[in-house]
């Protein structure tokens, strides 16, 4: 087992506490701190570093767990779910196409009420192929019954993995959880992370006690054929209720977490919201760019603010309502696209606000950052400018799909080259 010293290393002697870790290393470190028992794995860019790191630790004996590479993500998820039912604390990770390949099993694992934790390293879905992130992968699992926690920083990745176990394994929840982090922008980005100490984690996350573990001598039925819609409905409604309860359980767990480690997490997070009239709603690593845009607008005297969705399932409706009501305008930044509809989170935010009397007059849908498309700070502030223009009536409301002219010129050049021009 790792010594407390090496895990709690605060960079001894450094002026800045913590150490530089990639998002992937933060995820692996948190799995080790959670003392997981079993890691079924299958590699895919940009997740691979997580399972390579864990495989190394298991091999060198600094992590006391069983690591197995399966032959696909589908088998990986099956192994994860069944091991979790047997009472193991299970960790695994995937990305993009891997998550889709595992998709059939996600619904099974949640239906079995197996509280394992899956880290998804977001990468846009093929075709066409790209390695960089957007959230169509993780949001394809939106309806699977997994709790979803999305991270903005490498620090949050580590903290969310630990919180995810506490919530998932709570007897009031008993659902699996996904912790999402963006490929490249977190997975390969090193930044300061303060890892919690092992003793603290042990008290925050005691060993998993399955209520009805699969044991050879003690049969228990899980995920059986029910053959009747009303029985099926009964089970699904129970899952829904458990997922809804997960928000309260998360808040309780977050309170304990703050007491132990000092970092405070809610299902959502507001940034400069106090007097904000124009609010951008977003999630994941590009939220950092959103914060910069808020600061730039504030420098120009515009009361701008940001609402970050940390918890995407259950959807934090009450928190969204509380923080958006009374604002002049909001924009929902979706780093995903449902062709034929638009961003996936926009309708969820808009639906949350529909029955609220003093809802923002304008809720602007914005799609951007697909396939990891880089966003300049001007591009981010243009979202606020659009919100203001639409809200003041000087422009009609139309969804924004971000693309800069110089990017479009590059697309045109590439197409011309492919078509035989020069």
């Amino acid at each position, binding site marked *: 087992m790792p010594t407390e010293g090496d895990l709690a290393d605060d960079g001894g002697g450094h002026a*800045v506490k913590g150490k530089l870790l990639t998002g992937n290393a933060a995820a692996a470190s948190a799995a080790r701190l959670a003392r997981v028992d079993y890691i079924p794995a299958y590699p895919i860019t940009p997740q691979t570093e997580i399972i390579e790191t864990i495989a190394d630790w298991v091999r060198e004996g600094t992590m006391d767990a069983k690591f197995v590479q399966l032959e696909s993500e589908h088998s990986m998820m099956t192994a994860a779910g069944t091991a979790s039912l047997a009472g193991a604390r299970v960790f695994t990770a995937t990305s993009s196409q891997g998550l889709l390949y595992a998709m059939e099993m996600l619904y099974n694992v949640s239906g079995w009420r197996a509280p394992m934790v899956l880290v998804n390293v977001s990468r846009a879905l093929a075709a066409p192929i790209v390695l960089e992130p957007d959230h169509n992968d993780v949001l394809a699992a939106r309806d699977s019954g997994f709790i979803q926690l999305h991270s903005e920083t490498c620090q949050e990745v580590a903290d969310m993995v630990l919180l995810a176990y506490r919530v998932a394994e709570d007897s009031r929840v008993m659902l699996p959880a996904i912790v999402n982090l963006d490929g490249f*922008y977190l997975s*390969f980005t090193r930044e300061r992370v303060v890892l919690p100490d092992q003793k603290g984690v042990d008290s925050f996350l005691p060993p998993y006690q399955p209520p009805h573990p699969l044991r050879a001598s003690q049969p228990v039925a899980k995920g059986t054929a029910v053959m009747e819609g009303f029985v099926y409905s009964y089970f699904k409604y129970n899952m829904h209720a458990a997922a809804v309860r997960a928000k309260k359980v998360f808040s309780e767990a977050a309170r304990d977490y703050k007491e132990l480690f000092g970092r405070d997490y809610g299902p959502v997070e507001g940034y400069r919201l106090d007097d904000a009239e124009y609010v951008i709603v977003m999630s994941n690593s590009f939220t950092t760019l959103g914060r*910069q845009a808020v*600061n730039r607008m504030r420098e120009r005297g515009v009361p701008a603010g940001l609402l970050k969705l940390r918890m995407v399932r259950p959807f934090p409706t009450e928190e969204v309502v509380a923080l958006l009501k009374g604002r002049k305008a909001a924009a929902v930044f979706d780093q995903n696209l449902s062709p034929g509809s638009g961003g996936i989170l926009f309708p969820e935010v808009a639906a949350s606000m529909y029955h609220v009397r003093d809802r923002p007059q304008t809720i602007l849908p914005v799609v951007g950052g697909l396939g990891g498309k880089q966003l300049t700070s*001007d591009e981010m502030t243009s979202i606020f400018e659009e919100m203001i223009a639409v809200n003041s009536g000087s422009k009609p409301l139309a969804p924004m799909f971000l*693309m800069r*002219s110089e990017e479009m010129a590059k697309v045109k050049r590439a197409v011309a080259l*492919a078509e035989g021009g020069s």
Partner: protein
Amino acid sequence: MMLRVRFHGRGGQGAKTASRILGDAAFNDGYYSQDFPIYGAERRGAPVAAFTRFSDGEITERGFIFSPDIVGVMDDSLIDDPLANPFAGLRKGGCAVVNTTKRSDALLADRKDATIIAVDLTGMALKMLGKAVLSSGIAAAVARVAGIGESQFLAAVAEELREVGLSEEMVRKNVELAMAVYGQLAPLELRTEELPTKLELVPLAVVVSGEGMEDVTRTGNSAVRHTGNWRTFKPVIDYEKCTDCMICYAYCPESAMSVREDGRVAIDYDNCKGCMICLTECPLRAISQTMEGGTR
């Protein structure tokens, strides 16, 4: 105070390692720091970029650096590569460190508002390491210009190079090289200012102009996307030995072997990626390899 550094190199030259060395060095020196590489699925030789930010307060930025204070260019053949565009957005009052044998005033004539520093890192690396590994050299140049402390920096070189699995001897040689580069330069008082930018968003209707879908129908067009500049090594046919048996022609995965009018095999250097499969397969050992030109 925050400094933003953008490294440009080719896959295999060590841009990512350089960004991490600098990230560690700044962290060791008491700064908040963040580093991040960006690369596609391409292999060695393709243009890559890596980034380091460091600051005396929490860093509230991430991802691509559009307006760097310092750029480190590891290969001067990237200067004219429109995909790399290494000086793009370099701030007024900023600094570019270029690995080159050219003179600094020949490099970026139209940017009198920035400091250009030319260092022959490849030459130094060949002399001191015996190979053109550039990560510690370019990191040393940037760290010195940025005013990062020497001991913290050298510790970072050793730390990172051990992490990528270099032998103790190579680590020691790299530290010596880093010291030499560091000692050659002086810290700069950087007072930088972002270049003015103008945002022009393209509306969706323009992005998707026309109806239907975008299919590329021209055949054989992969040859027009030149991948020859990905090469680190270049295969050269010795026509005295070659019997035109065509084995290399059959094995080349890029179809970069062709037959000349006179019936001899020839390499299409616009597209050869330098994988050296031809060299391995030639039964007569008629293909040899040379290092690519430029700074590689």
